[in-house]
């Protein structure tokens, strides 16, 4: 199709660069610089979408972010599909593929349009009233089986993409002295002033080209120059300033506390194609010292019957399509207005060759410069107008209206332009928690007292008119610069000619629409809310505007009521016989326009979603085919399968080899904290349940840390290196929590102690060598230490050297075998590990992973915090109360140990469970009961915490927490499972080497 509606002009267009695109499979032409909306209009396409609820045919109504109707899906290749984009903001590029939404089978013939006929049944609040019952087949049956699935099918507009998004998204933090939102006349004047002060200035604008209303300003002169010339010079001046950053295509979508402003910057398709390194979007988290809001105003639709027909458009949007994109929106236009601005649109359209049949003004009089100019240009003007009918379904064909002079008439037209006046864009101001005030004279809500360091300038501050906007922008820029601590330049006068101010406007619906139950006079286009819906909400008892909003869904669509809120509010006010300020406004919430998930996710996906922490020995294990498991952010070697070995076989072999000879285990991930200072022992004495004052240097103790509530919080071996220095170990996952807990106490409760904490978790690689041959394995590598049992007994620590590097050698065991943990500086972890490995291989040893470690410790009845415990388990429950320093005056959690529920006799206690059938391995988490088939909802005695097949014992073993468990040794209990109950006997939790002779060998 040719671009039949393309005319001369079009400041945005690059006519040397034609592009082609498709919409619903039909190919069209346009130019670079077009939006999808302007190109569709140029090609005469009027029907672009179907409405949400009634599936009514819809056309383009605006030229900006406020567009409620022209929502399209845009595909840019595989995986690059974005639904619900506003066609008015989609930059055209060659090969763009766009499709309409919410229609089936086609846009022109849409089955869902039956909803339009059913409209009387699905008015406001119909969900609440209709889908209540009946309960034929049980509670909420109809809702769950019929209504909700049906509504789900019908709900939503565009389809979500199903493939992974191949585009990149990045996010940056940033800072500036003065943040200016909006690069229209007020914003640019502010930027020129603030930029001259030397402050760091960021100016952003949602459009590809800065300029705002100046882009369509054909007649005005600023400082003796055409507005376009002034704009070009202003932008050039800003671009030469290194302290000013202009960010086009950048939407400020949120204004948060402490002047934290969120920006989403789009990168244009040609740029993306030219540079594959560029991201699709950048999310900027900007902290601004001062903010200037220059977000402009949005033209309001008028409310009349069938005001949603394709071809009905905001008057200024028509003017913008003409001047910015060289598109006339029709051949024969009727203008209906309550504001002078529409006269200007009519004049400009007439100059471009559009036949303007009539300007029908709803006001009693049309006086002032703009109506005067229109009349002088030969355009017919009539006042006291009332719109009665819009004919044409898929596009406007004629309107029937009454106006003076001339009375009732029907006029053929293909464009109906409307203006109800202008609504200041106070969204960001409101998000900043600033207080809005109602201006009775202008009938608008505008910014009142600021809550943050910001000020508004221009139309968003209800300061209309080019001259006043420039002056206020200049003042705001200077004020912001000086508030940010910079010397502001002198006020700059802006002489403006040829731009008389346009006044007027109305809110709500005219009288003959109110109360008309048949008129489909739309207030909210996107959510299909009509005047009668708002009235119904009030009639049904909704008083608060927040309730009216939710009952009718007005303002709840993705356009956030940019066009509809003020009209809905005015209608609700009339229905309640209240004033507009008495009814009040609904809350403005971020985002101002929808933001992609990609922008929020940024790079946080795949390997960058979370850090992946690997130990220095990780690669060694990976090279040997180890399987890994995630423990917090760590990757830990889980088991080391030999070729053709199953996990079960590998774990069995690892346990067998370690118990018979020697095993090697990477314990690097254990948390480590170095506690240093003259009061180090006193501090640990208070933080742990154990006694530490008398622990001798060179010895270790198994430390148990309680929460304030008296429950076990963390455990680990604590080694005293010197009178004033301890090496504290924690669980792998508990390291940050334990350090924070200690630091918290140190800074708030124990400020008298001279002791400091330093995390050393990553300073040391920890190589655990366990098994009867552990001593002979490490001996050849060690120097400066006597490894003999008497000289270096179980639970000792020594400084020594291994392979020539310093080591903190500990004799500790988590397997029940003779064992050592070689702490070496992490950078030497792998070579030392390899040296130990060579010694170990000579003695028939093997490496083992976390699974074998778990099995071996369970055989010994050693608990794991987080497995045997869940934050409600005490030391007494675990049989570990022997470790409590009984003579200590106090320690964290001590007071709670005398609470009645903590000393109650029926608490769950740690026991061992042996299944009657030794080959059955219980499920961890399974419930333990007295009877084989307990009655439904009867409480269980406890649950299984750990369960394994033990190679050592040749059977299954389990640990469990069972009520009064220690008095039940020998009893038979049951573990009921879906396939039938499993009989188990209760035993001691220590299954292997109860006397610990192997440990002390």
């Amino acid at each position, binding site marked *: 199709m040719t671009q039949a509606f393309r005319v001369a002009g079009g400041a945005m267009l690059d006519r040397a660069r034609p592009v082609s695109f498709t919409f619903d499979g039909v190919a069209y032409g346009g130019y670079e610089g077009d939006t999808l909306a302007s190109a569709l209009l140029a090609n005469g396409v009027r029907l672009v979408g179907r409405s949400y609820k009634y599936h009514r045919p819809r056309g383009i109504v605006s030229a900006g972010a406020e567009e409620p109707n022209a929502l399209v899906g845009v595909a840019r290749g595989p995986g690059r599909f974005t639904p619900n984009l506003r066609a008015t903001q989609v930059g055209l590029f060659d090969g763009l593929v766009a499709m309409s939404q919410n229609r089936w089978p086609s846009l022109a013939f849409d089955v869902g349009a039956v909803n339009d006929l059913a409209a009387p049944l699905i008015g406001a609040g119909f969900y609440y009233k209709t889908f209540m019952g009946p309960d034929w087949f049980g509670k909420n049956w109809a809702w769950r089986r019929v209504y909700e699935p049906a509504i789900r099918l019908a709900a939503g507009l565009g389809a979500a993409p199903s493939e992974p998004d191949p585009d990149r998204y990045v996010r940056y933090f940033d800072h500036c002295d003065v943040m200016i939102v909006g690069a229209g006349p007020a914003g640019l004047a502010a930027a020129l002033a603030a930029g001259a002060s030397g402050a760091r200035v960021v100016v952003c604008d949602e459009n590809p080209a800065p300029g705002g209303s100046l882009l369509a300003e054909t007649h005005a002169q600023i400082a003796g120059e055409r507005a376009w010339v002034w704009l070009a010079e202003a932008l050039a001046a800003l671009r030469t300033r290194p302290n000013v950053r202009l960010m086009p295509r950048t939407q400020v979508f949120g204004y948060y506390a402490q002047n934290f402003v969120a920006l989403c910057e789009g990168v244009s398709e040609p740029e993306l194609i030219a540079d594959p*390194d560029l991201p699709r979007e950048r999310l900027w988290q900007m902290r601004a010292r001062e903010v200037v809001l220059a977000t402009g105003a949005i033209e309001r639709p008028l409310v009349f019957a069938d005001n949603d027909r394709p071809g009905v458009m905001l008057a200024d949007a028509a003017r913008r399509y003409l001047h910015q994109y060289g598109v006339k929106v029709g051949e024969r236009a009727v203008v209906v207005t309550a504001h002078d601005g529409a006269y200007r649109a009519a004049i400009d359209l007439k100059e471009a060759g559009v036949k303007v049949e009539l300007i029908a003004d709803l006001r009693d009089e049309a006086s002032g410069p703009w109506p005067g100019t229109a009349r002088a240009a030969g355009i017919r003007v009539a006042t006291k107008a009332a719109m009665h009918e819009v004919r044409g379904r898929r596009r406007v064909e004629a309107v029937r209206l009454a106006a003076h002079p001339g009375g009732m008439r029907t006029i053929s037209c293909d464009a109906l332009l409307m203006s109800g006046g202008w609504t200041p864009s106070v969204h960001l101001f409101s998000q900043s928690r600033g207080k809005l005030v109602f201006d009775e004279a202008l009938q608008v809500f505008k910014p009142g007292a600021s809550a943050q360091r910001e000020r508004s300038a221009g139309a968003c501050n209800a300061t209309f008119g080019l001259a006043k906007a420039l002056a206020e922008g200049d003042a705001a820029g200077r004020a912001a610069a000086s508030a940010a601590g910079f010397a502001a330049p002198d006020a700059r006068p802006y002489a403006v000619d040829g731009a008389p101010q346009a006044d007027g406007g109305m809110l709500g619906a005219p009288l003959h629409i109110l109360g008309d139950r048949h008129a489909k006079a739309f207030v909210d286009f996107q959510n299909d809310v009509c005047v009668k819906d708002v009235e119904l909400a009030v009639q049904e008892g909704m008083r608060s505007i927040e309730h009216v909003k939710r009952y009718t869904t007005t303002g709840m669509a993705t356009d956030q009521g940019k066009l509809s809120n003020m009209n809905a509010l005015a209608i609700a006010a009339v229905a309640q016989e209240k004033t507009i300020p008495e009814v009040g406004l609904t809350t403005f919430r971020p985002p101002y326009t929808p933001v992609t998930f990609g922008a929020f996710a940024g790079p946080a996906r795949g390997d960058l979603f979370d850090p992946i*922490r690997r130990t220095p020995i990780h690669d060694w294990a990976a090279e040997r085919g180890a399987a890994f498991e995630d423990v917090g952010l760590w990757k830990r070697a889980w088991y080391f399968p030999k070729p053709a070995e199953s996990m079960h076989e590998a774990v069995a072999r690892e346990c067998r080899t370690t118990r018979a000879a020697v095993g090697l285990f990477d314990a690097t991930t254990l948390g480590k904290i170095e506690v240093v200072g003259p009061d180090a022992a006193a501090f640990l004495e208070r933080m742990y349940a154990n006694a530490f004052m008398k622990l001798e240097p060179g010895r270790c103790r198994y430390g148990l840390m309680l929460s304030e509530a008296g429950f076990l919080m963390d455990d680990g071996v604590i080694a005293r290196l010197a009178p004033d220095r301890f090496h504290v170990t924690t669980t792998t996952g508990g390291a940050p929590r334990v350090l924070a807990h200690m630091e918290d106490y140190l800074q708030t409760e124990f400020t008298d102690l001279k002791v*400091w904490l330093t995390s050393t978790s990553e*300073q040391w690689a920890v190589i655990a060598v366990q098994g009867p041959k552990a001593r002979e394995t490490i001996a050849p590598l060690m120097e400066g230490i006597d490894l003999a049992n008497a000289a270096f007994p179980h639970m000792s620590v020594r400084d020594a050297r291994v*392979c020539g590097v310093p080591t903190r050698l500990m004799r500790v065991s988590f397997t029940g075998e003779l064992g050592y943990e070689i702490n070496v500086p992490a950078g030497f972890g792998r070579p030392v590990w390899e040296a130990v490995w060579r010694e170990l291989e000579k003695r028939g040893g093997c490496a083992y992973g976390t699974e074998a470690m778990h099995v071996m410790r369970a055989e010994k009845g050693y608990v794991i915090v987080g497995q045997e415990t869940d934050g409600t388990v005490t030391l007494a429950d675990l049989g570990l109360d022997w470790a409590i320093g009984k003579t200590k005056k106090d320690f964290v959690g001590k007071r709670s140990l005398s609470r009645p529920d903590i000393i109650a006799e029926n608490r769950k206690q740690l026991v061992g469970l042996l299944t009657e059938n030794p080959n059955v391995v219980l499920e961890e988490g399974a419930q333990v009961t007295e009877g084989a088939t307990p009655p439904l909802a009867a409480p269980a005695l406890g649950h299984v915490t750990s369960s394994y097949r033990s190679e050592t014992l040749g059977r299954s073993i389990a640990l469990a927490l069972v009520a009064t468990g220690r008095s039940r040794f020998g009893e038979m209990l049951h573990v009921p499972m879906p396939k039938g109950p499993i009989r188990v006997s209760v035993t001691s939790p220590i299954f292997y080497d109860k006397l610990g002779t192997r440990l002390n060998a």
Partner: protein
Amino acid sequence: MPDAAVALRSPLERLALPAGDRFALAETPPAARFVFRGGEAARAACSAAFGAELPARLGLGGERERRAALWLGPDEWLLIAEGADSASLGAEIEAALVSAPHSLVDVSHRQIGLLVSGPVAARALSAGCPLDLHLSAFPVGMATRTIFDKAEIALWRRGATAFHVEVWRSFAPYLVAALAEAARGAPEG
């Protein structure tokens, strides 16, 4: 010595570090590192023993020859001594501090140093670091403890377009990948 001395390994040894004109990453040379904690008397004594001034407050790092002291908190400093042996340096400092309560902990292997440089270095860092890295707010020589997204770092500005970043070794590959990703297509300035 029972075995031949073993060689130092880096967590970055398998990674290809970006090395372009716009952005480059390089591991800094091996160094002795300590976390030093203590009061004012200890700070003064440690400054003398270490050879570089431990700053009394947040701001520029104290630097002399190949030694630097970065302020991390009201009683906490990171000491970096490039090429030094941590055992002997630690002993020297301890010897000078017998009368002042303090904590000196060797963290030479806990973390690595990364030199982040190029015209988009600050921008790439700002992808994960919420601080203002503009030269007027974060001048050359400034050092602080901060975060990069999900990793804790110490950040020390060495030049207009060069930063020294200290990061725990297991977080280093993540930091390298995240910085490289943030630098890709990053706007200058």
